[in-house]
């Protein structure tokens, strides 16, 4: 498999007042296309910073990040926005849907910034909602949906652009066990269809869904092991 993500010697340094915080200290990792990776670590380990950089929301202070052959660390804000729009899908712990806006319109959002026609947006968004099992709930607003359903809308929004990489930051953190299982089943299904999934979690049983487990500590990789090869299971 070709590498989708190549990180070499990533550093991220913040200044908080007079204190310098080194969130990443020379982290290197390579992730191949089609992998299902869980990133684990305690809070303050640097895993959120890594996710932000991998998701092109932030840029490293030093080091190299290559996503699908593109050197991301050199890009301008609008070019980063384009990468996020074309190649990435995000699923957040707090769902992050736009309030008082229907599931369909929330799902359409990335397509709107792509400049598709309204008809195309609707067709693709409906298909994505159907794929996460929300057919018939297109016109419900977030407050009319349960937590699990809201997270499914968020997943639909992430996959509606057919991204090559899906980043899920504690996607089950706000959900009960049953909803969590549903969400993980959907993520596994997406990975099965070829989408690379990176999952940040601190729950071991959630991480167990992934094929590879990377543990981050103090800004670098503590352990990196293949739990089981899903391709062969």
């Amino acid at each position, binding site marked *: 498999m070709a590498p989708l993500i190549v990180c070499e010697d990533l550093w991220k340094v913040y200044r908080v007042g007079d204190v310098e915080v080194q969130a990443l200290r020379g982290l290197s990792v390579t992730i191949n296309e089609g992998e299902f990776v869980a990133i684990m670590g305690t809070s303050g380990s640097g895993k959120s910073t890594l996710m*932000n950089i991998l*998701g092109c*929301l*932030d840029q490293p202070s030093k080091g190299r990040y290559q996503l699908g052959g593109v050197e991301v660390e050199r890009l301008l*804000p*609008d070019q980063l*926005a*384009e990468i*996020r*729009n*074309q190649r990435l899908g*995000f699923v*957040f712990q707090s769902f*992050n*849907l*736009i*309030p*008082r806006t229907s599931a369909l319109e929330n799902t359409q*959002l*990335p397509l*709107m*910034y*792509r*400049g*598709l*026609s*309204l008809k195309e*947006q609707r067709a693709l968004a409906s298909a994505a909602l159907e794929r996460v099992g929300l057919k018939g709930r297109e016109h419900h607003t977030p407050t009319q949906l349960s937590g699990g359903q809201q997270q499914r809308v968020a997943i639909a*929004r992430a996959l509606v*652009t057919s991204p090559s990489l899906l980043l899920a930051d504690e996607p089950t953190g706000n959900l009960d066990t049953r909803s969590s299982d549903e969400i993980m089943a959907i993520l596994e299904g997406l990975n099965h269809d070829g989408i690379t999934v990176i999952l940040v979690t601190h729950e071991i049983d959630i991480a167990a869904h992934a094929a590879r487990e990377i543990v981050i500590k103090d800004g670098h990789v503590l352990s990196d092991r293949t739990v089981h090869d899903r391709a062969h299971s």
Partner: protein
Amino acid sequence: MPTFVWLTVVTALRILQRNRLRAGLTMLGIIIGVGAVIAMVSIGEGAKLAVQKQIASMGANSILIWPNYTVVSGVRGSQGVVITLTVADAIDLKKKIPLLTETGWSRSGSMQVMSGGRNWSTTVIGASPSVLSIRDWAYSSGGPFTQTDMDTAAGVALIGQTVVDNLFEPGEEPVGAVIRLKNVPIRVIGVLSPKGQSPSGSDQDDVVMIPFSTAERKVLGTSFLGSVGGVFASTDRTEDVFDAVEQIREVLRSRHRLQGNRPDDFNIRTQIDVAKIQEGTSETLTGMLLAIASVSLLVGGIGIMNILLVSVTERTREIGIRMAVGAKRLHIMLQFLIEAMTLSMVGGGIGVLFGVTAAKLTSIIAGWPTIISGKTIMTAFGFSLVIGLFFGLYPANKAARLNPIEALRYE
């Protein structure tokens, strides 16, 4: 991009509808501003037209010459007292200046006019027949006096509507009736069509017009035969008025033997001068009112900016979400600009309705003439859009410059 803009407009309208009270209060400044601009300009334009009509009623191409004081050894006589303008001047002007179609002359005085048991104090004007045509008088009944009346100093008169109202019973026919001026019997041969107020506010219909010779010999009297209170002249075309004025000045100066830099012993005024003064006044007024309205628009713009800044803060997380799924800076900017412009556009639209209603009500209640032109409406509306754009820029830019990570984390 067009789909994006269209969807953003729909979203903006939805947000506006959701926060109706807030949006209404925000738009108030724009509503008042646009409404005020439209009402003011409509009333101003109406006033201007009324003035123009009034001026036309006095004969647009007419030129008025009246005597000035003469300066002898530095002592000034009071204005008009020294006889400087005569019938001969008027006749000579006509002869020497081909641009002038007609010249006329008149003298006037205040006098008691009587008819039967009634009397009325009015202005008696003794005029040459040409004055009637120069000043564009029309007749609601009867007709003008003639050169023959003039030559024979006939006892005939034309009377204005105000005199008719005060001297005759309603329904009584004034034409043919005999009135008395200083015990001289005068027959009414015509009633002048009402002209209303002059630009200076005097009643132009409070008048009795008699032939100049009749006035000079029988009614007003004179200390110097042939002296006149004013000379009227007119040109065929309006653009010739200024040339004619210069030529009149030359002819009169030579006739009055005014040499070198001795000042004129007469004044010349054209209706165009009067029109300019009047227009200037109404333009100043309109300008002042517009300035006040602009302040209101400005305040409205600041209101929009304020509410958008609140909105950007409230929706920081939403902005973060939009950025995460691929909105570029321009998209975020456009979103808030479109919201600002939607606010100002809806406000402007309501303002237009308010302004038009206010102008119409002013016409109906106060009886002032108003002109509501499409140009005024478009300008006021366009201005409100510009205000929305201008005051939306800062909040929109602020939103577009947010850091996506911080925006996503915002509670």
